[in-house]
Structure formats: C-alpha cells, structure tokens
C-alpha cells in the first residue's frame, strides 16, 4: 500500500461513493459478518475513466461541459443527466475520458471550480450504465432537488416536493378561507 501523503489528495472518490459501496456489507446477515476476513475485491475505480459531475445548472449545455472538461483530455463520451419524466437536463452528467489519468486530473483540477457560474462537484465513477442518466427523485429529477429548502434558480427554484406541498397547502387555504376572502 502506498504511503499516505502528507497532504490530502483531491483525486480520491468522495465520502458519498465510499458510503454507498460499504452499505451492502453493513446490512449483511450475522452469519457473513462473522467472517472477519476483509474481502479482497478489486477496486472498481482503479482504472475508472468516468467522472460523475454534479450541481450543474439545468441550463448548462453539453457544449459548455465539453469546453471545460476537454481541458483535462479528449472526451470520449458525455451523457447528460435527464429528468426521468420530462427528459430535460436535471443538473448532472457523466464525462468519460479515454484514460484514467485524465479522469484523476479532472478530479484534481476541475472538481470544485465553476462552470456556468456554479461550483460543480466531481466524483470518480466506475462506469456509466444505461438508465443512470435519469434522475432518481420521486418527481423525475435528482433526489437532492426534492426537498431542497434554498431557492436555486439554476435548478428549478425550491425543492419540488416542498413546492408541491406548499401548493397543496395554498390550495387548502384558499378553500378554507372562503369567508375571510375579502381580508386578503
């Protein structure tokens, strides 16, 4: 194992990725847990050439992504994240490079910088698979956009679930308010 650097590295997978990887192990039955031997599985990110890009504006285009991410190497494939229902961009994408080194450099040099005036997030990704281009949120977009409490113009304002809750609330109020209507 290589010696830990005296300075943290930015080309490591995020806590999000590592926690998602670990979860299945934690939820295993006791029987398997007694097997203390740590599984020597191959690191799926060892040669990863794909980068997940998050916190994009819904309005950021493929061309803009190309322009920025090409600075780390030629892009082999770009898959925009789409709203499952409307099929419009919903604020993330997958950038695939030709080499692992380009992907690592992307983590180091582009992650955390701005595209379209938003700080974007990058994460090493094992590989794009069909279906992953769609948001997994209830209303079609990304999960994080369901209950977001801040107003983010680039990502459709308030969280969608919150918005619809408020809509229902407002509607109910409208109905109940009948007799006090003139006060409004």
């Amino acid at each position, binding site marked *: 194992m290589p*010696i*830990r*650097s*005296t*300075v*943290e*590295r*930015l*080309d490591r997978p*995020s*806590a*999000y990725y590592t926690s998602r990887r670990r979860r299945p192990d934690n939820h295993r039955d006791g029987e398997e847990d007694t097997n203390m031997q740590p599984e020597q599985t191959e690191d799926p990110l060892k040669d990863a050439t794909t980068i997940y890009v998050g916190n994009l504006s819904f309005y950021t*285009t*493929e*061309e*803009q992504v*190309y*322009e*920025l991410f*090409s*600075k*780390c*190497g*030629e892009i*082999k*494939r*770009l898959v*925009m994240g789409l709203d499952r229902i409307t099929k419009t961009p919903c604020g993330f994408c997958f950038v695939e*490079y*030709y*080499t692992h*080194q*380009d992907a690592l*450099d992307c983590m*180091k*040099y*582009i*992650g*955390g*910088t*701005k*595209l*379209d*005036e938003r*700080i974007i*997030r990058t*994460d090493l990704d094992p590989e794009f698979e069909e279906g992953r281009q769609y948001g997994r949120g209830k209303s079609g977009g990304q999960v994080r956009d369901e209950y977001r409490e801040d107003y983010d113009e680039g990502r459709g304002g308030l969280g969608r679930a919150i918005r619809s809750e408020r809509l229902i609330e407002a509607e109910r109020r409208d109905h109940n308010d009948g007799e006090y209507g003139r006060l409004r």
Partner: protein
Amino acid sequence: MADYDRRQGGGGGYNNRKRRYRDDDDRDHRGPRRRYDAPPHVRIRKQLLSIAENPMRSWHEEVQSIANLFTDNWDDELLRSNFVDLLLQITVEQPLKIPFLAAVLLVANTNKSEIIDLLLAKLVSNVEAKIGEGEWRDVKLYLKLLACLQSCLEGEGVFPVLEELFDRAVDLQTASSEDTIGTELVKIILLTLPYVMVAAPDQWQQKAADLMEKTEIIASEPHTLQALIEPYHPERVEEGAPPTTSLIGLLQNQLQNEANNGWILSCLPRPWEFPVGEIEVQSKLSNPTKHPLPPISIPQTVVAGPRPLFPEVYFSVYADQDVESVPPVTNAAASLIRDALLDTINILDYNRNITARHLIEVDCFFAPRTFAARATPFDRLRDIEPPKSTWKPEDVAVDAVFSQLFQLPNPEHKLVYYHAVLTEACKLAPAAIAPSLGRAIRYLYRNIHRLDLELTDRFTDWFSHHLSNFGFTWKWTEWVDDVFLPDLHPCKAFIAGAIDKEIRLSFAQRIKNTLPEPYQALISPEKEKDVPDFKFKDPQTPFAAEGEEIAGLLKRKAADEEIQPIIERIHALALDNNLDPLVASTDVFVTCVLHVGSKSLSHVLAAIERTKDRLTDAGATSDAARAQIISSVMSYWSSHPGVAICIVEKLLNYSILTPACVINWALVSYAGRTKGDALGKMHVYELVFNTVIKVTGRVRQVVQKTNQPDAEVGNEMADAEVTAMRGLFKDMEDALVSWASGSKDEIMEVGEGEGGAGSEHERLVRRWGERWLRVFRRRAAIEETFLQEAAKEKKAVAAGVTAAGGATAGEAIAVDPAVDPTGEAVVDDVL
C-alpha cells in the same frame, strides 16, 4: 492515527463537508470531557506537518518544541523510525519546509545525536534510488536537506557528492552537445550550494568558488533548443537578439554576485540560528556532534527520468515595472524563491488548495523582511524606504505560477492545473491576489505582439477560464480603443479570441452584459442563437429544395437508398451550373447532417454515426470534397467555433477526415480565401494545433509500444506513422513559409493599397505567418528529440540493458479512439 491526521490535514478537500460536520458534533456536544493528550507520535506528526506555517509562532520555539518532544520520547522505537520517514517524506512533498526540518534535526542532534545517523542512512539510500530512476527533483530536494545539515557533517560534508554529480555532467556534456541531463545536474548543484553556505557560514567559500569555476562552462553555454523555447518572439525590426533568459546562466551569475558579496543570501531562512536569549542551545548548535555522510554511489550512466528535460528560461510578468515588486534577475533570491515555489506547485498538483495556501503564505518560509507586508498595494511600494523590501509576496507567488503556464514546450502538468491554482489563490485572498493578476494580465497584453503564438493561445485560454470563475468581471474599458483596430492586430485578435472562449463557457447574452458598449458589436446576433440558420430554408440558396429534402429524410432516419437519388440530382444540377458536383453534393449533405444534429453535440454525433459511411465515401471521392466537409462544418457553426472544432475532432476520430486535410484546409484553402486573415483567428490556430497534438500523441503512443520488449505493434506501423507525421510538418512548413515570406499568391495578386504587397495588411499577415511557423517548427523539433530518445532507448532495450524510464512522453496524450477496443468510435484506420 488516521483520525487525528485527517482532521488537521483537512480543509483541503471540498468533498468532506459531511464528515467534518460530524467530527464537530463529536467534539462539541458530548459534554465535558477529560482532557486527552494525543500520543507523542501523533503530536509530532501534527507539529512537523504544520511547521513554519503559523507566522505568530517563532521558528526557534517551534523547532525546539518538536525536537524536545522527539528526544523526550526517544525510547519509542516506532516513533523513531516514523520520525525519519516522515521528515524525508515532507522533504519531497512540501519542500518549502526543508530548512525547518533541518533545524529540528540539528537541535535533536544536540541531545540524541544518533538520530542524524538514522536519517543519513535512509536519506542516502533514497537519493541513490531516485538517481537510478532519474527523479532529479527528488534528488535535488534530498540534497537540499543534506545541505542544510552541512554543519553536523564530517569532513567536507555534501561537497564530494556535488563534485561527483559535476563529473557526470561533464561526461554527458562532452558526449553530446544536445545533452540536457548534464545541464539539469549543474542546476541541482547550483541550487544546493546556497543552502550549504547558509547552513555552515564562513567555512566553504573556497570550495564553493572552485565548484562554481567548473560549472561556469556548462552554465554559460546556451543549449541548442534554447532559441525555440524562449517565450518571446520579437519582430525582426525590433532590437537585435533579446537578452537570453537561460535559467541556469542566470543562476550562475547570481551566485557569482553572492560569492563576491560573501554569500549574504539574505532571503534564505536560518531557523537553526537562535535568538540571543537562547545562548545555551545556540552554543550546543555551534559545536554539534559530527557525522560521516555514508558514500552515495552514482552510476556511471544516469538517466533522464520520466519527464523529458528541456533547457529552462526564467520568465516573469513583473519584469518591467518601475518599482521592484519581485526580486530582480541579478539577485539569487529570484532563482531560490522561484525554485522552492515551483517544486511546491508541481509536487502538490493533487491538492491545489494546499498549493494556493503555500503560495499565499510564501513569506512564512523565507527570512523575515525578505518581503513587504502581505497585500501591500502596488502603489504603496513606492513609499517603502530602503533597505526595506518592496517585494510583494503575492507578485512573487503569482509570477511562479505564470512561469509554468508560459513554459515551453510544456509545463509538468496540464495547463488547467495552473489555472486552478490561480483560481484557488484568488479565492483564498482576493484582495491580495486579484490586483497582482490584473498587473500580470496588463503586462501580457502589452507584450502580446511579441509573445510566442502558442503562449498567446494559453493566455487567451487561461484568461477566459479565470474570468468564468469570477463572474466574468474585467476592466474591459481600458482596452476599449483597441476594439477599433484591424482584426489582424494581435491585441484585437486576443480580444476576439477571449470573448469567444468566454461565450463557450457561458452564453452570448451573458457575456454581452459584461462588456462595455463598443465590444458588444463584436458579438454578432448569430452568436446569440442557440441553433444556426439552415441555409436551405431560404429558397434563394442553390440546392435549397434538395437540402430541405435530404434534411427531411435524415430527420426521419430514412434509408440511404432514399438519399442517393437526390444526391444525383444535385450532381446533375451542379454540372449544369459549372460547379464541382462532388463539392456541391458534399456541402448539401454535410450541412443537412449538421442541421439535423444542431440541438446538441450528442445529436450531431448520433447523426454522424448514422451517416458515417456516406460521409466517408464523400470525403474519399476527391480532395476538394474532403475539404468541403470542413468548410461546411466551419461555415455552419461559424458563430460557435468551439462546436465546429469539436465536430472536426470527431470527424478525425472517424477517419472521415485526415489530419493533412485539416491542415491543408486551414493553411492553404481557408487562409488563401481570406487573404491570410484566417491566420489571425485564434480558433483556426486551435483547430490546427489540436490536430497536430492528436497526430504527435498518436505517434508517441505507437513508438512507445514498439519499444516494449513484447511489442505487438510492428516497426512498419510505427515507421509509417512517423513518416506521415514528418510529412505533415513538412506541409505546414511549406505553407507557413510562404505566408511568412509574403510569397503567397493571395498576397501577390492583390494590388498595392488594398492589402497587397507592401501594405499594412501584408505586414500583419506575414507576421502571423512567422508566429505560426515558430510554433510548429518547435513542435517538429520536439518530436524529433522524442524520436531520438526513443531510438536510444530501443537500442538500450535491445542490448538487454534495462533502461529505467527514459525521456518519454511528458505531455498529456489522449489515447486515440482508433486503438481503444471499447470505444464507440472504433475505426481501423489511423485517426
């Protein structure tokens, strides 16, 4: 141990917000806790890693505290060996801290002198390993630590090592005039020497003088490639030869000055000198236990290592100011501070936040009073009374990054890394850094007419990328008069190129809003349209009906057989109108494909994928038709050149286009059609440059593959690639020489006064020709150097010698899709 380290090593990541949050919870909300002291090894690690970072702590206190903590726990064997390993690791990872690490060792030596022997043993074996690998920077850094320990070394200390390195350098230089390793060795010797002189003052003057007398010959000899890597390319009418800025030549002179002045070296820190109150420690330090330096064996043949070595020049964007905000090139401080900063920048590419922090805190790591106070405005430097320093730490730091961004042929890392460092520095200390960047930008803009064209392109790219991280704010008003210059003027070309790149990262309307009124005319209404107009919509356009029809068929993904009759109709119509039928049908078809795919790059790639057979056939019919493919792409996307360049790149990957075709289109057809104006367009340069890099990257890859012992790629293939590349460079040379010399027909044809011979327009075009020529002559020379090295390496491999490393590809090379088995765009042919 990991948990402790993570905490203090953190702050660099942007991904660990959640984790840090949880840590805070642990600490804050669990009620009163018993005070817990971390074990010594953890405390030592923590203190060593942050040594000298806190300007509020005095060096001697910090040094003494670490040394004492260590010697107090001497019996902890694990701690002992970890301590040595950690010191050596910090040496090669955070080189600004080397003198402070040495000071800790020197103080520890007064108590437990065995520590030095432990360290020397490991250091020597590390140095030997790094020499074997040709990792010359690491060798330099270990030697720097060793130099700082000179006072506790027996005999002549580090000098015998430096002398042996010099002997190797002489061998190499006598063997070949093109040698770069020898030059690198001399550079290492010269950069180590000053640290010896401050570590053991007043003892080694004669030794130093002897050594420098020897290095003089090598240091003053300009390298054969020197002329090609100078950042400036003055116009011929300007003052004769520009003063050479060879880094090693400057260094030799600077050290000579120091020697003449008794090696004052006032910028270097001396953390081993204790204040008057600490007389006891100081007297122990003055009479240290001496240790023999184990012999360092240096092999007879040394290797260049994984990064290709080139001669280096000293570059500064603050050179011509009326007040010295950076050390002058006559002062050794210029080289010594720059060297330490460059190592820091290039080593820490894996955490640009830490790099930026070290840059901003540069004054912590050099002698007090080396710099003016942080964030002193430039205008206030004038008020500083000598002998106080006027060197602005921000300028010194930013200058170092720019020297990498503008290093030819290539800096160590991708250019975007240096962009990111400047962005981070600007985020950390905007009030201090932003004005320095502003002055750098103005300097570069003022000198843009003589800046190498490749560097002009880098400047444009960095400038637009940087602005995109800071709301696209720039004081455009100060250049407003230049908007009215002719498009071929270098300043105007820069403005146009920068605005185009800003738009690519954003969108036209947004950028327009950031620009003063006169600039807004440069953004045509077409640029504000997401999708270009389809010319066949207008019935006046020739072949309008056929165009609409083909577009319709492509949209509903009709079979190719349905398209063929229409193509034939175009051929017939073209013949009737005395037009080249193949060119006409290619234009219609390609334009239709682009139109159908105009929604996004994915759409156009899918459209090309579906029609690639027909496109390939169209390109294969005639040279004119193939050139027309590019013309159609460039013209359809003329308002969005970034998209056009991207599409051409993909067409190259599909082998629908060849590199020669792209270059010929740009330098002959298009440049000819525009009477040379094309040469002043940054996106045309970008198209050609990218194409050349694709070819050279591919050649390097193939040549390296044939160099493997179990090479699957045959020599014939590599030879064919090399021949093709040389042919390409030859074509470029021919085309560009005629532009540069004014012998191009298109210039000759035009009458005087309207852009022909002798006019201002002709002068400008010729100058662009010269600038282009220099870039691609350099590229050709670099590739030849690479091929020579590869041939040497191959011979060595064949001879059964295991050559470690060897000067090979140092630049970023994208694996070509043609050799990628999983790529979607797999094609058999080359490129």
